[in-house]
């Protein structure tokens, strides 16, 4: 499919979602090793990564998407993966330069890079900072060596601590990830680990419960009964503990699994959850581009395989292999799925404009009665902490 075929009908809007922002997501699809829990689009290339080829393709990929989104001001860039900290700092610099040459980048734009805390990668932190990265997201995942090993991570706690230290000195903003609800993890052990994590004074924490994803090594172990994760009750207890401990320490949740100091929220991720506009560049990346008039959003999906992605960009000028126009109820569903993850909830009036439908007042009132949902005086609807942990059921109720 050529760009003409796939993207020719796209009429660029004059502006996207300026009130929410415009984000650029860049996917780096390589890792040094595949973690057993991870179902992201990441690939290991033992014979080496064609970083130059990646940059070359990205140049055309950026240009193609910029044509679809003229006059936008970029409010956030997110370099995710994979492990983008395998990239040379100069490459990150080149990517940011390319973005800047096609779009206006706002002065206070958030530029995040995901990094692993191995010593090799930590050596590049200053380089990334010079290249323009102003927020680092570190994949720490656990603060004890046994669990790091279980999670298939290549670093140990000592390296993680040094990387955190260095990152805090280097970047104005810092986030790191932890995975909890691990097999046999007690409330006490997690509380101690979480308190220690909070002590590292990051402005943002992503605290994910371990999820068994399809087609992962963990799924096979889980299916064979060799990996047992906490049941729903234990998981809910761990979740409640997490909310209480992080909240009391000044890092309240602003999303299901994300905590921040006031103002420390990830602006880029907020863009997703607020159903704003973003382009997705790189293998397997997804975008949501606001189209002209009332034609809703254009969902773009890029070729997943890194080599096929490069080839496709070389041949057609971009990597989009699938598009879908999203409007009406479908757009409403997406807005609910994303927006209700946020503690701030959603604007019911915006939902109505986007979806063309209203919430069933009886449903809302039932959900309120059961303590799952709150309706705020300004008309926003949001989940309660209890509702957040059964969000999929709440969304299904509201969307039905």
């Amino acid at each position, binding site marked *: 499919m050529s760009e003409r075929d796939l993207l020719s009908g796209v009429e660029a809007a004059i502006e996207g979602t300026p009130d929410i922002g415009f*984000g650029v*997501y860049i996917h780096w699809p390589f890792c040094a090793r595949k973690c057993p829990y991870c179902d992201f*689009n990441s690939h290991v290339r033992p014979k080496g990564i064609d970083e130059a080829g990646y940059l070359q393709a990205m140049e055309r990929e950026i240009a193609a998407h910029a044509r679809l989104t003229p006059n936008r001001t970029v409010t956030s860039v997110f370099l995710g993966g994979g492990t983008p900290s395998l990239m040379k700092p100069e490459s990150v610099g080149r990517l940011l330069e390319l973005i800047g040459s096609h779009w206006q980048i706002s002065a206070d734009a958030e530029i995040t890079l995901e990094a692993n805390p191995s010593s090799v990668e930590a050596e590049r932190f200053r380089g990334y900072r010079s290249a323009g990265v102003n927020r680092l997201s570190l994949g720490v995942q656990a603060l004890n060596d046994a669990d790091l090993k279980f999670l298939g991570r290549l670093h140990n706690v000592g390296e993680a601590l040094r990387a955190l230290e260095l990152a805090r000195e280097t970047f104005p903003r810092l986030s790191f990830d932890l995975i909890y609800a691990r097999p046999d993890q007690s409330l006490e052990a997690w509380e101690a680990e979480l308190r220690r994590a909070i002590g590292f004074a990051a402005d943002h924490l992503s605290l*994910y*419960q*371990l*999820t068994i994803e399809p087609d992962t090594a963990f799924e096979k172990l889980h299916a064979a009964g060799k990996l047992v994760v906490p049941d*729903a*009750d234990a*998981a*809910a207890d761990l*979740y409640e503990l997490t909310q209480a401990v992080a909240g009391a320490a000044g890092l309240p949740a602003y999303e*299901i*699994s994300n905590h921040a100091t006031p103002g420390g929220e990830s602006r880029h*991720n907020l*863009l*997703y959850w607020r159903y704003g506009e*973003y382009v*997705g560049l790189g293998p*397997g*990346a*997804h*975008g*949501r581009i606001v189209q002209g008039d009332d034609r809703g959003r254009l*969902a773009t*999906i890029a070729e997943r395989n890194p080599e096929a992605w490069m080839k496709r960009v070389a041949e057609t000028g971009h990597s989009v292999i699938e598009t*879908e126009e999203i409007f009406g109820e*479908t757009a409403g*569903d*997406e807005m609910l*799925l*994303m927006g209700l*993850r946020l503690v701030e909830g959603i604007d019911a009036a915006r939902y109505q404009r986007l979806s063309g439908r209203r919430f069933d007042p009886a449903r809302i009132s*039932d*959900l309120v009665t*059961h303590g*799952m949902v709150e309706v705020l005086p300004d008309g926003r609807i949001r989940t309660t902490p209890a*509702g*957040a*942990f*059964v*969000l*999929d*059921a*709440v*969304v*299904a109720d509201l*969307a*039905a």
Partner: protein
Amino acid sequence: MTTKPLSHIRNFAIIAHIDHGKSTLADRLIQTTGAVAQRDMKDQILDSMDIERERGITIKAQTVRLAYKAEDGETYTLNLMDTPGHVDFAYEVSRSLAACEGSLLVVDASQGVEAQTLANVYQAIDNNHEIVPILNKVDLPAAEPERVKSQIEDVIGLDASDAVEISAKTGLNIEGVLEAIVKRLPPPKGDPDAPLKAMLVDSWYDAYLGVMVLVRIIDGVLQKGMKVRMMRTGAVYEVERVGYMTPKLELCDKLEAGEVGVITASIKEVADTAVGDTITDERRQTAEPLPGFRPAQPVVFCGLFPVDAADFEDLRAAVGKLRLNDASFSFEMETSAALGFGFRCGFLGLLHLEIIQERLEREFNLDLIATAPSVIYKMTLTDGTEIELHNPADMPEVTRISEISEPWIRASIMTPDDYLGAILKLCQDRRGIQIDLSYVGSRAIVQYDLPLNEVVFDFYDRLKSISKGYASFDYHLSDYREGDLVKMQILVNAEPVDALSVLVHRSQAERRGRAMCEKLKDLIPQHMFQIPIQAAIGGKIIARETIRALRKDVLAKCYGGDVTRKRKLLDKQKEGKKRLRQFGKVEIPQEAFIAALKMDD
């Protein structure tokens, strides 16, 4: 095709336990005699409905005429009658068997004789059939033909020394089967010159030809253009087409005594035909109708409702169409507080119910909710009026009822001695009264009188499970008897669900109530709140379970790339919700209405 002399006709049925290879053998016989071109050959030719193929059961009787050139150089006409094998269709089986002179008893050479086979074998013996034992799957390593032969002799009392050993799957010794049919099964008797006397074996609706009637000519000749009388229904029709199945319809001019074939006669509905009826010549009538006729009588009732109320008219059209093809199924409109508009339907038994429900869902693309099956209760009210109750939801106030009576059946159960204790306990638990217990070899034959309402639901399944499939079961309705019956309601989240109400004997209420609550606890998904499930008689709670509130149902991660995938999951969830029924604030999956009644005790 010219009519064969009687000596060159063989009419036979195949009796087999499910999976023992009945349909495969039928396929091979058809193939070997060349009735179906190789390219039209698909497995289980005679099971024409998808449901029949999938479940490996035969619902409608089917017939196929085969021409076989035997070793003696003569060509014989073989009529294979494929019969249903389930107790729900016991009467239909009895008529099919009555239309044949012999049976092939197919037994898996490793599994041996099993329950389902027995009831049908005994029926075949009752119909004076000559029976040829066939050992199938002798090519499998686990085959033990000698053991199974002696089992056939011990259990059934049939001489199995010259049983035919075959493999229907590989086609091994199919010739042997054909020779045995010719040599060992008797030809039909009958007087071609006597007045026409034919048995209506089965009927079905063909979209092009209308109602087709499967007949066995006992005496006389059935010809195109003839005016025939159905002796039981009294209706008179002019015969339009005469033919036989190969299994494709082949037309001919006439069918003579001893032959099996089909006719059409501008009959509007299958309901106008009665299985077991006697067809005779309107101008020259036979003196006596054939014995053994029984009108089709629904014994189990349940409500069928569309999941989406908007589909009611589609359901109306669909039940009407199905009835065209299945006279044993009846329906009338019903309204339920919980389920809206639907139909109260009558069935021959539970398998029949499940089949109809499945056909409605599949062939007519409807989503249905079936309510608890019930029998017909008779009530005398205090003012002296008598009413029939098909639906527990319609039960009058207890104070207005002076007497309730319920249908009873006489059941015959045959079982190897080993399972007798468990079976007697089952019958006792279901309020049975033992009438007789006798032995044939190591097999016990026990007769019980049982209330139909105790049998209607899962008795047959239970019997099969406690006897490992070896017990066979047959029954007929006997009478109505007074019973201490109460209406048990199920309350979900404190609201009564009328579609789950059942009439039970007071002595059974607690056990049934507990079982239903336990079942529903597993069937109703967790909600965002705790749901009490209660069984109650009048205002009194007799059993209670609680479904705990949902505590975790959320994706840990959801970013820009996940929304498409998550939205597709949501679409599935929304689709799934359509199969749930809202009762107050609780959503109940439609399959729960039937599954709640199945007991695992």
